[in-house]
């Protein structure tokens, strides 16, 4: 049942460029995919390991700025720039993680929020490098691979889709492995994990680095897809938006980040005329969901299918 749904979703995703009437809609879907990749990263650290990294969007920014700067200032092609962007995000993740993971609960969230705000301030104020509030424009598209050119909306859409598919595959493989089950076990009972000989600090750092890798990947894809970049993509409000997508989609689940992002980006788009007032709809929606489906749309769906199967 679940496998069938994934196959249908994949088929629809591949067919979308031929189904939507305007590139405008294609851009919205691709943008949602990019956000979903970042939300998957948030899911690794929050959904699996139970740690709220409020600086998540800053790591997205590190990946995005690294790709944009390496392409525009150093003349690197996209592919090595993307690898370097992911690496930069992971290295910074290792540094921030090795300090912040000494704290717990609210302190971890506050510490990472502070780091995130500081990184966003650097993006805004280091004008010679980042272009300040204007940001970086004219980021070149990826160079062609043989006959495959990537300079149009449709090929870029497929690149983003590929990155999303890779992300989901990574999360699936890790979650069900011994490593992923250890992430979840630590969130469940830290003391028992220690008593079982698990080096909790090391496992948490691994999860943090995997999470920042996905944030960096999302950032790199954002810079590539949009061709321009500003500091407004890296702030605390973006992290909270991603958090909202994760909670509504289903925290800790495999489908949740994608479902939550697509649904909320879709609703946001429909309610565009309401601007900030759209949170008047999101707020109650969130409360109802958390009340009745604590595991979000994906968790609620699993529960319903399990109930049908039991009949």
């Amino acid at each position, binding site marked *: 049942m679940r496998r069938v749904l994934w196959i249908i979703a994949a088929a629809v995703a591949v067919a979308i460029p031929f189904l939507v009437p305007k590139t405008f809609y294609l851009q919205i879907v691709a943008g949602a995919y990019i956000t979903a990749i970042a939300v998957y990263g948030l899911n690794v650290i929050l959904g699996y390991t139970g740690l709220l990294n409020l600086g998540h969007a800053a790591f997205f920014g590190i990946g995005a700025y690294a790709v944009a700067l390496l392409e525009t200032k150093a003349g690197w092609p996209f592919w090595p720039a993307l690898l370097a962007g992911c690496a930069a995000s992971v290295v910074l993740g290792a540094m921030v993680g090795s300090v912040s993971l000494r704290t717990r609960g609210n302190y971890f969230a506050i510490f990472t929020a502070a780091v995130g705000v500081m990184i966003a301030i650097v993006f805004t104020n280091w004008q010679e490098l980042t272009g300040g509030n204007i940001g970086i424009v004219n980021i070149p598209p990826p160079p062609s691979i043989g006959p495959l050119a990537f300079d149009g909306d449709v090929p870029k859409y497929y690149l983003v889709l590929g990155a999303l598919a890779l992300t989901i595959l990574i999360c699936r*493989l890790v979650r069900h492995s011994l490593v992923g089950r250890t992430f979840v076990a630590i969130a469940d009972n830290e003391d028992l994990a*220690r008593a*079982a000989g*698990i080096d909790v600090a090391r496992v948490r750092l691994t999860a943090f680095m995997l999470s920042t890798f996905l944030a960096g990947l999302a950032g790199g894809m954002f810079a590539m897809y949009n061709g321009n970049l500003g500091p407004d993509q890296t702030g605390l409000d973006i992290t909270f938006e991603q958090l909202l997508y994760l909670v509504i989609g289903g925290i800790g689940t495999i489908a949740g980040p994608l479902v939550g992002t697509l649904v909320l980006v879709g609703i946001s788009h429909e309610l565009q005329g309401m601007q900030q007032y759209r949170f008047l709809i999101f707020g109650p929606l969130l409360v109802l969901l958390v009340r009745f489906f604590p595991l979000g749309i994906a968790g609620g769906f699993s529960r319903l299918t399990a109930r049908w199967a039991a009949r």
Partner: protein
Amino acid sequence: MLLQVRNVTKRFGGLTAVDDVSFDVPAGHIKAIIGPNGAGKSTLFHLISGYHPATRGTLTFEGAEITHLPMHEIARRGIARTFQTTSLFSHQTVLDNATMGYRMHAATNVFDALLRTPRARREETESREAAYEALRFAGIAPLANRIAGSIPQEAQKRLAIAIAVAAKPKLVLLDEPVAGVTSEETVEHAELIRHMANEGYTICLVEHKMTLVMGLADSIVVLHHGKKIAEGTPAEISADPAVIEAYLGAATHA
């Protein structure tokens, strides 16, 4: 000597929870630690397992000092423990719980998981087998696919022991293994503990139920207000006037 506890002291601010306690646990023994509430029994376990650092004194395991090692390192040396309030990975399956007990023996990392390396596949099988073996040992293999938090209380206590056994330890610390179970189930648990000893595990247990302790233990350490007031065989302990005064006497009033 498997474990040597020497002059171990633990202070929390002005309170001395464990005061200059020394004893040995020889390999293959069942050692019981008894004493009235607040005697420092659980704190002593926390010190041995590295959950709390000792204020003073030394702990030696298999001839090597472990006093200041972090908890997971002590577990890796071969000391497994259970907690007083049954402590499980309650949202995971029973099988995954036992698998975590064995986890430290598997080196699988993120890259192994992503690339499905031969090591990842081999260790997946190994840890699954080790987990099932531990569940069978504890008599709860049929519950393998249930969520740990949803199984009966008595089975949860068995699962806590299965997690410890899956770690393949040399010494198992059991913190009140039969707290809150019926007297009938207590007998079954005593059998399980006896079975562990027969399989070659050295056991150290903290327990309130005197019948269990007297029937099981090879030797007993009695704590009172953090101090060791007696040590000996069950027969010696039940005849010791200081123990009767401090603990057994008090227990008959209760």
